[in-house]
């Protein structure tokens, strides 16, 4: 969106309070959604829970195509549609709810830097694992991605998406990485997150921020998704404070509210 359009949208957003019937769209949970999309969706859900904003999760097979930017999840609030965590955080801020107001400039810079770290390493590693690792692609991804569609559409869509992701990986230099190198990067990222978290309950001490939501979304999904091999979740399990962090957020924000969206408990 151009700058003028964005300013206009946030002006409109500020005018109305959060409605009761806000909905979040993602792909079908049981059969279709993949690891990276599930992580993103869970991050947004966690963020909205932390802001105390009610939202209903709706699963649609064509959620990716409905979204204005092509990425899931997206939220439908009033008569506006906003996708991806970054714009959603800004949209929610325009409505007057923000988790990071209490941070000073240096802390805000750190928070943005760590969010980029998660996006850069964890998300890219998830995409790599799903779409460039032949074992996972064959067994899980192709079958899941096209499952709501009839033959031959399911194959065509899956190959198209795989080609797109591989192009992106090549452009950023991950095309030649082996799986072991990717897992090492994940390990480095988790180590950095673990060192930053230390013994605090959240990344910026007492209050959770969007960084906590993002990290929770990714780590929880990695820990609870069944893949062809467990190496990815093993890397995360090495860091006990990250495990405690996920458990804490799950208990506080998901089980207490009675929402059953993450009813699988952590191993």
């Amino acid at each position, binding site marked *: 969106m*151009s700058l003028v359009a964005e300013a206009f949208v946030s002006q409109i957003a500020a005018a109305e309070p959060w409605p009761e019937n806000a909905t979040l769209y993602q792909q079908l949970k049981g059969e279709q959604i993949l690891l990276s999309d599930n992580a993103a969706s869970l991050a947004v859900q966690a963020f909205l829970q932390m802001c105390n904003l009610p939202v209903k999760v709706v699963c649609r097979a064509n959620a990716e195509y409905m979204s204005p930017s*092509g990425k899931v999840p997206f939220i439908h609030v009033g008569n506006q549609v906003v996708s991806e965590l970054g714009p959603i955080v800004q949209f929610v801020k325009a409505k007057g709810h923000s988790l990071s107001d209490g941070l000073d400039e*240096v802390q805000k810079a*750190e928070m*943005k*830097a760590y969010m980029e*770290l998660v996006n850069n390493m964890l998300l890219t590693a998830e995409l790599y694992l799903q779409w460039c690792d032949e074992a996972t692609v064959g067994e899980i991804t192709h079958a899941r991605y096209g499952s709501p569609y009839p033959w031959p559409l399911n194959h065509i869509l899956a190959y198209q998406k795989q080609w797109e992701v591989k192009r*992106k990986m090549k*452009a950023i230099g991950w095309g030649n990485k082996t799986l072991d190198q990717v897992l090492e990067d994940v390990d480095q990222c988790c180590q950095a997150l673990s060192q*930053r978290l230390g013994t605090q309950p959240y990344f910026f001490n007492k209050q959770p921020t969007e960084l906590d939501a993002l990290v929770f979304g990714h780590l929880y999904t990695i820990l609870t998704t069944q893949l062809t091999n467990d190496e990815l979740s093993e890397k995360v399990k090495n860091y006990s404070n990250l495990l405690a962090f996920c458990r804490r957020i799950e208990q506080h924000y998901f089980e207490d509210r009675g929402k059953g969206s993450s009813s699988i408990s952590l191993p």
Partner: protein
Amino acid sequence: MAAPLELSCWGGGWGLPSVHSESLVVMAYAKFSGAPLKVNVIDNTWRGSRGDVPVLTSEDNIVSQPAKILNFLRKQKYNADYELSAKQGADTLAYIALLEEKLLPAMLHTFWVESDNYFSVTKPWFASQIPFPLSLILPGRMSKGALNRILLTRGEPPLYHLREVEAQIYRDAKECLNLLSNRLGTSQFFFGDTPSTLDAYVFGFLAPLYKVPFPKVQLQEHLKQLSNLCRFCDDILNSYFRLSLEGISPAGQETVDANLQKLTQLVNKESNLIEKMDDNLRQSPQLPPRKLPTLKLTPADEESNSLQRLSP
């Protein structure tokens, strides 16, 4: 540790030891950690076209990307980071990710995609470094690679339009520069008084943007307004790279003399001219010194007697 380490990278210009960000990152890190690095300016560039520059060769190891090169140097005990705490190490990773996600697309755009800049500055410079006939092909290929990268990481499928992402990437880059400036504050380097990996990365990304003169300069203008980042680049250039131009290895000079700082601030505008003259001096040692008025550093730091006091 005494194995000769050779770095092949793009050459320098406009006061910088290298115009290519990644090469600059490696060179800065080597200076900070005291690694003895022999720099080869490459001119056979099939390797450059595949994006493998800079490349470090040592005995029988060939290491290619900046992150891997830095890891290799650390394993050889040239480590600029061991004074950092665990949290600072984690912060380093996060800020590097921030640089790559937010600043790099706009930098690539400024250098390679913006047509005024590309045709008047970048292409002639790279073409002058590459032998004919590759000079006709390679800059174009690098430009397409940069455009590809920007569109694939920022564009929205299935329609990839550059105009839509241009505004967004410049906004992100300006925000990133502001964040870096906030984080640096008034300190000498990002983590206290000694430079580390993060300083090398920030310097490598910012210095070309700061020094190379472009016709279309919105990002450069923004950077020039953040005076602490400009001071940061100038400090590193003056203390780690100027000395090497005189032929003296810095051997881990850590803090900049207060007088030196004041002097460099005074002659900031003239530093480009001075570097050019230094180049001339190096290449033609026959010229009598009095024909080349150059900046004389404070006597305590000055060891070479070929430089003289700047005449007002």
